[in-house]
């Protein structure tokens, strides 16, 4: 074995990590080479000193400080467990799904049975104005003491506006001779006020006062215009 090869194996040889044929070859080489013996001696010294290196000293209160930290850790663990709420029960959807489905079916059946008129309304495809008018119907009180005439079933705001306009025109024709084309921006509440003798509803009774701006007559049919304006 050459010196170069032997020196590459010296560190493992000195730490007794070489086995078999390589160990024998290195030993034989060292027997005949002084330089490699010096190198082997150096490696052996380093190995001996490394294994006997003094232990690094710890401070005297090391154990005390550590146990204090562990005690704090134990306290925080206990406290957390005490204040944590119980785990919520895990919902198994396999068990709950049939119950949820049956409740949903019952609700759907109940809703469909209780509201047939709404279905009809959908089928009848009421006009936009009638739908909007129905909202005002809910505003009207059921038992208006001022009501002398029963509300018509096909009452709509557009028709009411048209009626009011007709009355207004008629009254204007009677009061001044300017006729059509003299309708200025006004409000239904004012119209209602002027035709209060004919309109059975007391305007102050309702909390919600519908304000509809009626623009100048452009020659169209008054009722159509009233609906379009709305």
């Amino acid at each position, binding site marked *: 074995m050459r010196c170069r090869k032997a020196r590459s194996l010296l*560190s*493992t040889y000195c*730490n007794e990590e070489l086995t078999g044929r390589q160990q024998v070859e290195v030993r034989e080489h060292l027997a005949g080479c002084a330089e490699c013996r010096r*190198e082997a001696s*150096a*490696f052996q*010294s*380093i*190995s001996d*000193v*490394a*294994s*006997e*290196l*003094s*232990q*690094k*000293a*710890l*401070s005297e209160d*090391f*154990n005390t*400080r*550590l*146990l204090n*930290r*562990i005690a704090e*850790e134990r306290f925080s663990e206990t406290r957390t467990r005490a204040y944590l709420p119980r785990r919520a029960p895990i919902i198994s959807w396999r068990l709950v799904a049939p119950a949820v489905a049956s409740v949903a079916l019952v609700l759907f059946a109940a809703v469909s049975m209780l509201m047939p008129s709404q279905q009809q309304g959908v089928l009848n495809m009421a006009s936009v104005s009638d739908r909007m008018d129905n909202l005002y119907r809910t505003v009207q009180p059921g038992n208006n003491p001022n009501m002398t005439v029963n509300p018509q079933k096909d009452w709509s705001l557009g028709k009411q506006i048209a009626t009011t306009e007709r009355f207004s025109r008629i009254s204007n024709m009677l009061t001044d001779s300017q006729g059509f084309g003299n309708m200025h921006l006004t409000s239904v509440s004012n119209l209602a006020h002027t035709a209060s003798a004919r309109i059975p509803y007391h305007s102050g009774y309702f909390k919600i006062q519908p304000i509809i701006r009626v623009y100048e007559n452009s020659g169209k049919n008054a009722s159509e215009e009233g609906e379009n304006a709305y």
Partner: protein
Amino acid sequence: MKAIQNGDMVAFNSMVNRYKGRLMNVIGRMLSSQEEAEDVVQETFVRVYQHRQSFDFKHCFSTWIYTIGLNLARNELRKRKRFRFYDITDMPGHEAELSVEPKLPSRLPEVLNEAIKSLPEKYRTAFLLRDVQEMPYEEVAQVLGVPLGTVKSRVNRARLTLREKLRPRMEEQNALSKSTLLAVNIL
């Protein structure tokens, strides 16, 4: 470990006494500061306590605790690299505090300690675990999380580097011992 998992603090205390020296031996030589090394060793035991329930009995406990300790030490080294720490004695105006000249290491253990500190981190760790702590190669491989061949290669490289660093010092000592012997022979 079973007793520690059941909350036996006597068992935990005996485990601390068994491993604190070994851990300090390795971590104290990875970090330069004694206080930092003690903090890291303490933190290692605290982590062992915090995660005691997650310990897998298929693995060796010493491997587990060394892995935790070395990871914490590496984190500390990375932190030191990010924030450069300056010793107050390096700052101007503190020369008067240095009344005693620093003692040069003369004996081989001190020289070896200094040489180990100058090794690159991965070689240093492998050398400390294998040659200083005398752990088997397989255990060192598990702790470091590298193959067995890599561990052997790193340990060998560390030994060769230490030999080169200590060569002048050892030759000096050899020369000194030869001259002393010659003087004695003459006398």
